[in-house]
């Protein structure tokens, strides 16, 4: 048998159902890896041995009884520490919540537990999901398993790293401006930012409510679809979560991409690092060979994405973080770290009397134009392919003293959040030892299509087999 840390969910699930491995053995191996690597990588804030093993024990019983289970049953998963988990400490990566133990589960956590997935731990993140590097955590930075001197990308840093390093087979994350796609690209894993409203936000500590999307990381595209099959769907506790029925995301995933029209938006390739550009265009060529058609398109308001985002997001952050008063739960407001404080100040300013029209209202208007770019593009093409990041994973410390430079790391990812459309980050090769990812973006609720394209490409390349040496 393969080394357990090299398994995919699909393979592990087959081994479990055919009784070649016990869920307790599988989970034990992943817990061991999580503990063993945490000193180096710092990808977990809390490791949940007892909860994970109890769940695994239950799964072994169900399998022994011949029950038909969800493919996620017995699968070790990580949960970004911004999802409420009943009786498991949830810190949001901040000292404000260092002792907070939720009394209920986020809807997505509830669904995963119901599918009998085993939570191995709560993963590290930029505090309150504010950051692009994973360095803003009050519990110390997470490191990139492909090069320990570099950042793994943020804010869902620990989730991406736990999957990449074989400490979980899937991990939940949140994506408000790129917080799943960027770490996915930096760590050679698949990351989905679903359509806004596809997955319930209930019980996930809110950052910017009109932008927050709940997604996840896996090694492969197929595995990613398996997780969305569990998390997608209506939720009475989140009124922005759509009643539109989710698809079966693994169905038709192997269908050909013949005849699909791929748009290449010129704004994302101008001035792009030549090597990154080369890898992404090579990936597009692979899809062309499989029968897809390629068309040059324009998303003219792309250059206003970060400016628009850095009005809307801090404004909503300042409002959402107003609830942390140290009275009902958590500690008092001076415990906030620098980045949260900076965003509270910026957002309070842009919403304050006399400035609201010039900033927030203006940004909401430009947001409509940015969404319009995508709506128009999808009249001509089925999907759009573009880079995730303008750079390779950067060095720890390189951008920490210059917030604007850090914010610009999100230049290619914020637009999908502003427009609300889904985007799948898929590994597309290496420059030296460092991974590069591309985005496959589609119209609202087209996750099934994104998986189909991602799967076709991945089958040709299998970058997930290039594992880090830690």
């Amino acid at each position: 048998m393969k080394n357990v840390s090299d398994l995919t969910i699909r393979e592990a699930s087959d081994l479990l159902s055919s009784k070649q491995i016990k869920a307790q053995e599988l989970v034990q191996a992943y817990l061991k890896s999580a503990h063993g690597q945490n000193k180096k990588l710092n990808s977990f804030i809390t490791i949940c041995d007892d909860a994970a093993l109890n769940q695994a024990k239950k799964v072994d019983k169900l399998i022994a009884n011949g029950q038909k289970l969800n493919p996620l049953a017995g699968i070790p998963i990580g949960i970004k520490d911004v999802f409420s988990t009943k009786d498991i400490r949830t810190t949001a990566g901040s000292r404000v919540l260092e002792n907070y133990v939720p009394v209920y589960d986020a809807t997505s956590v509830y669904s995963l537990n119901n599918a009998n997935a085993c939570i191995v731990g709560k993963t590290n993140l930029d505090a309150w999901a504010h950051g692009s590097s994973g360095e803003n955590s009050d519990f110390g930075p997470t490191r990139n398993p492909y090069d320990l001197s570099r950042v793994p990308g943020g804010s869902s840093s620990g989730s991406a790293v736990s999957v990449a390093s074989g400490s979980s087979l899937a991990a939940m994350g949140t994506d408000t401006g790129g917080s799943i796609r960027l770490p996915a690209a930096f760590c050679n894993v698949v990351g989905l930012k679903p359509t806004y409203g596809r997955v319930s936000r209930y019980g996930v500590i809110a950052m910017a409510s009109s932008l927050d999307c709940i997604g996840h990381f896996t090694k492969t595209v197929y595995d990613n679809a398996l997780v969305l099959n569990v998390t997608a769907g209506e939720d009475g506790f989140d009124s922005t979560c759509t009643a539109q029925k989710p698809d079966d995301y693994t169905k038709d995933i192997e269908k050909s991409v013949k005849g699909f029209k791929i748009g290449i938006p010129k704004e994302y390739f101008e001035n792009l690092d030549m090597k990154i550009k080369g890898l992404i265009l090579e990936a597009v060529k692979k899809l062309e060979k499989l029968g897809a058609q390629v068309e040059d398109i324009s998303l003219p308001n792309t250059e206003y994405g970060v400016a628009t985002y850095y009005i809307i997001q801090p404004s909503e952050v300042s409002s959402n973080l107003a609830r942390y008063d140290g009275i009902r739960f958590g500690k008092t407001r001076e415990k906030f770290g620098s980045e949260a404080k900076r965003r509270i100040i910026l957002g309070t300013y842009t919403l304050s009397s006399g400035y609201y029209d010039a900033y927030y209202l203006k940004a909401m208007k430009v947001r409509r134009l940015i969404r319009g770019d995508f709506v128009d593009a999808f009249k001509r093409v089925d999907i759009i392919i573009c880079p995730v990041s303008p750079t390779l994973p950067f060095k720890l410390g390189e951008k920490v003293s210059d917030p604007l430079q850090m914010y610009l790391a999100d230049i290619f990812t914020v637009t999908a959040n502003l427009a609300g459309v889904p985007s799948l980050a898929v590994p597309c090769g290496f420059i030296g030892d460092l991974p590069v990812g591309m985005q496959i973006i589609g119209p609202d609720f087209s996750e099934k299509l994104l998986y189909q394209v991602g799967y076709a490409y991945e089958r040709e390349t299998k970058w997930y087999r290039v594992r880090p040496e830690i």
Partner: protein
Amino acid sequence: MKKIQKPEIDVDYVSKLANLPLSNKEKGLFEKQLKDVLSYIAKLNEIDTDKVEPNSHITDLANVTKGDKTFPSLSQDEALKNASKTYNGFFEVDAIFEEQ
């Protein structure tokens, strides 16, 4: 339509609005850093949005309501579990008004 002005942010005043205590060092640092961010944001002035309707969220959902039914919720003990101070089954807070 108001234009984004030359960025001037009174961090001291805004920190009071936000009920967020800051050290003098933080105030100085944020003022400088946020001026950079606000200068960058000012590029939105380039776009004419006079005839554009604002877009606050992207779903077409409106007036989502639930049936008027009761269902189990947190117990009082659970709701108070994480509070730093409680009194007789309530959250305890510092006095807001000064005594006469």
